[in-house]
């Protein structure tokens, strides 16, 4: 046994014959399970997932699948190795008894654990009016079933598609519709697509991409209601500006909600913002005390990041789910001195309207932006975000080859504006401008990174110490 921890053999025993339960059998859950087996865990491993499918990949759902280039049930995640698990698929976890170390399942079963990993991710935020949301032709896009249903609806050749929300997913859906030659309207409450994630300067570029590709983009408006026909099919949507859009397919793309309700009352520090954990992926309980046997990873986690002022970050990033799962799995099977922090630099990609978009760092933290290479007008550029004199994030459109450089700059807390010149620096890159993020207290379609630490200036809490 290695490490400076307790040498009482308990870790050895855990690795040999312990019981590990993973709730959330998708990307983070699967990758963590693989890492655990790689690290020599030979005990029992239970994978609990409420979806009936083995782990599959979501990014293709809004891209290749909608284009009909891939079939939704062919997006199974490649296996890195056999994990020899007891799969409980199609059954949700409904409760957690931390004292007895037990997970309750929807079918009444209970599963005991020595270590628990929670990777329940997020789900699509539904249309707020359930009756309207239940109309035929109204979709969200998070799961394989969603993807398949929407692809079929698009293949049927609707007269018009309405996408509500122009975040990454909404924009990708609009892009797929145009590529299929379908008329599409996008309604966005913010001033531009992608503003929540990348700010108004980049949002303006995204808006041009919509326009040039023939998307009917409506910004600064909200959809107030959906209207169905007598057969229960959606036929139109009413907008806050008084206009009406007739559409026979409506995709609600309003961001995501964390899957934490099943933990209510368990005593774990879980809520609508996700499950708080330390840098080593160990979950906090409601009292802010770190647990030692419950770990979290992926979209559902929110963890402090040293590079970003120890802000708690909730990321909806594929790469984060993989990296965090790996760290969680490592730490679950390590003595305390051997644990690693999850200090992954947030990174995200998207592809829409034929443009490859990538970002690193935390753009929504940035207050200013500077185009360091290329040009916004050509839609081929690299831009960096500044926060209090520091480079805090970068984004590229069709220029991702340079991103590793910026990532390295962000990691080394490089100054902003950057003091250096680069190849392909244009006049527009001479001076920083405001990055133009909307007020974070106004909800947008979902920024994909949420800064969820409270600022001391928030004065939202009252302090009531216990007896």
């Amino acid at each position: 046994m290695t490490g400076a921890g307790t040498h009482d053999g308990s870790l050895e025993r855990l690795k040999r014959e312990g019981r590990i339960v993973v709730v959330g059998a998708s990307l983070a859950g699967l990758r963590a399970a693989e890492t655990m087996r790689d690290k020599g865990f030979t005990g029992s491993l239970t994978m609990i997932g409420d979806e009936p499918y083995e782990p599959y990949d979501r990014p293709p759902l809004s891209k290749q699948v909608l284009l009909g280039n891939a079939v939704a049930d062919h997006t199974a995640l490649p296996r890195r190795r056999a994990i020899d698990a007891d799969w409980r698929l199609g059954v949700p976890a409904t409760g957690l008894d931390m004292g007895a170390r037990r997970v309750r399942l929807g079918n009444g079963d209970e599963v005991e654990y020595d270590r628990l990993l929670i990777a329940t991710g997020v789900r699509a935020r539904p249309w707020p009016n359930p009756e309207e949301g239940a109309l035929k032709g109204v979709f969200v896009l998070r799961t394989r079933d969603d993807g398949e249903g929407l692809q079929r609806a698009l293949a049927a050749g609707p007269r018009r598609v309405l996408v509500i929300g122009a975040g990454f997913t909404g924009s990708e859906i609009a892009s797929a519709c145009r590529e299929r030659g379908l008329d599409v309207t996008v309604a966005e409450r913010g001033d531009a697509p992608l503003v929540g994630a990348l700010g108004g300067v980049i949002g303006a570029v995204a808006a041009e991409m919509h326009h040039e590709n023939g998307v009917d983009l409506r910004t600064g408006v909200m959809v107030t209601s959906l209207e169905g026909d007598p057969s229960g099919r959606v036929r139109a949507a009413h907008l806050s500006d008084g206009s009406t859009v007739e559409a026979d397919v409506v995709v609600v793309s309003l961001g995501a909600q964390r899957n934490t309700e099943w933990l209510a009352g368990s005593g774990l520090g879980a809520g609508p913002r996700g499950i708080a954990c330390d840098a080593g992926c160990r979950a906090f309980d409601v009292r802010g005390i770190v647990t030692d046997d419950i770990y979290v990873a992926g979209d559902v986690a929110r963890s402090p990041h040293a590079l970003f002022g120890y802000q708690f970050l909730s990321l909806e990033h594929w790469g984060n789910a993989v990296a965090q799962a790996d760290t969680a799995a490592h730490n679950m099977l390590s003595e305390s001195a051997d644990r690693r922090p999850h200090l992954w630099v947030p990174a995200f990609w998207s592809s829409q309207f034929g443009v490859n978009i990538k970002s690193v760092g935390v753009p929504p933290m940035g207050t200013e932006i500077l185009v360091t290479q290329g040009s916004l007008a050509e839609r081929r550029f690299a831009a960096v975000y500044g926060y209090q004199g520091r480079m805090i994030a970068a984004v590229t459109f069709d220029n991702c080859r340079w991103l590793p450089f910026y990532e390295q700059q962000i990691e080394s807390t490089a100054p902003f504006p950057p003091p250096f010149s680069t190849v392909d620096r244009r006049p527009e890159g001479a001076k920083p401008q405001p990055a133009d993020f909307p007020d974070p207290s106004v909800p947008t379609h979902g920024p994909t990174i949420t800064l969820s630490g409270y600022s001391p200036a928030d004065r939202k809490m009252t302090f009531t110490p216990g007896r």
Partner: protein
Amino acid sequence: MSQALLREIIDYANRANPYPLYEELRKTPVSHDGDGPYVVSTYYEIHSLLHDPRISSDAKNLKATGDDLLGDQSDEEGTTLPPSFLKLDPPDHDRLRRMTNRPFGPPHAPHRVHDMRDELGGLVTGLIDGIRETGQLDRIDLVDQFAYPFPVTVICRLLGIPREDEPRFHVWAETLAASLDPDPDADPTKRGKGSMDARMELGMYLAGLIEERRKNPGDDMLSQLATADGPDGAMTTMEALSTSALLLIAGHETTVNLITNGMLTLLRFPDVLQRLREDPDLAVPIVEELLRYEPPVQLLPQRTTLSDVEVAGVTIPKGASVWLMLASGNRDPKRFEDPDRFDPDRKDIQHLGLGSGIHSCFGAPLARQEAQLALSELARRLENPRLLEDPPQYRQNSVLRGPRHLQVACDGIRG
């Protein structure tokens, strides 16, 4: 003016085995002496500079002043070809490379290289048959009889250049390749004039062909470069000329060395040669390991800094010349386990043999395929091959390093 380091790198005495010198160099990841270039010799430092937008490939930035960076980039004298995309920065580099790639690789021409497989196979067979027909198996020059004519024929076919003209442009190509080789002792004006003349003559030759292809376009790349009209528009005549000159020269000078270095190495490691004979698929990992172990392009001597850049604790000042020692990075023990061992079973092999970043080798897929085919066929057909001279006689060039001749003998040539 002390340029001892530079002299040592180009010293012909180190040509046959430059690796002890590189090992010495790596003790100082960024070396600089006198007013010579900053020489970067370790893997991670080279790799990061290849991805650093503060590093330029445009010689105009050498000792440049800040003012003209955003200003207009007026051309040099119009007496010769403009620089090819190898010596340009984005956005011009990106645009020309993209346009060149359209007829060559994915996404628009995903099968181009793959579809040449049969043709390449035919050429290899023909050349080896030719060696057999000479009946002289006790002294074969693998360079002259195989490793040179093969890629040269391929690049001519690809571009659509008459193979008969090869002797003419061979001279130009040699002169231009030699001009890449830094030589502090040569008279710079004389050398510059020589390569300028060669560029001009090559340019005029290609201009004639392009003119002709504009009238009668074929399926070759020259026709496509001359007539293409994609989202980036069309190339100007001068751009098409310098691009085709680049492809011609690069296709001329590098794959020859890859194949020759490859055969030399395999003859030094007969067990690997035997494995390749039994399993031609092994050519794939063998060629990757060769690109690490004996890369045909040893160093990139033409980068300059646009800003002060700190590397491994050294600040390379703005406007400085930077040499990236690819072959040295490939043998960096901090990156590769047991780096001086030729090991085709190596799993983790992100070598620098084809460069990295935006200027990474354009012809890589073709070079790989040519080398794989050539080596596996030579291994299969030559009976009991052996080196007659080890080390062989090397070419002068320290940048494009490879044997001038590779004398081998064999007992027979299989059908």
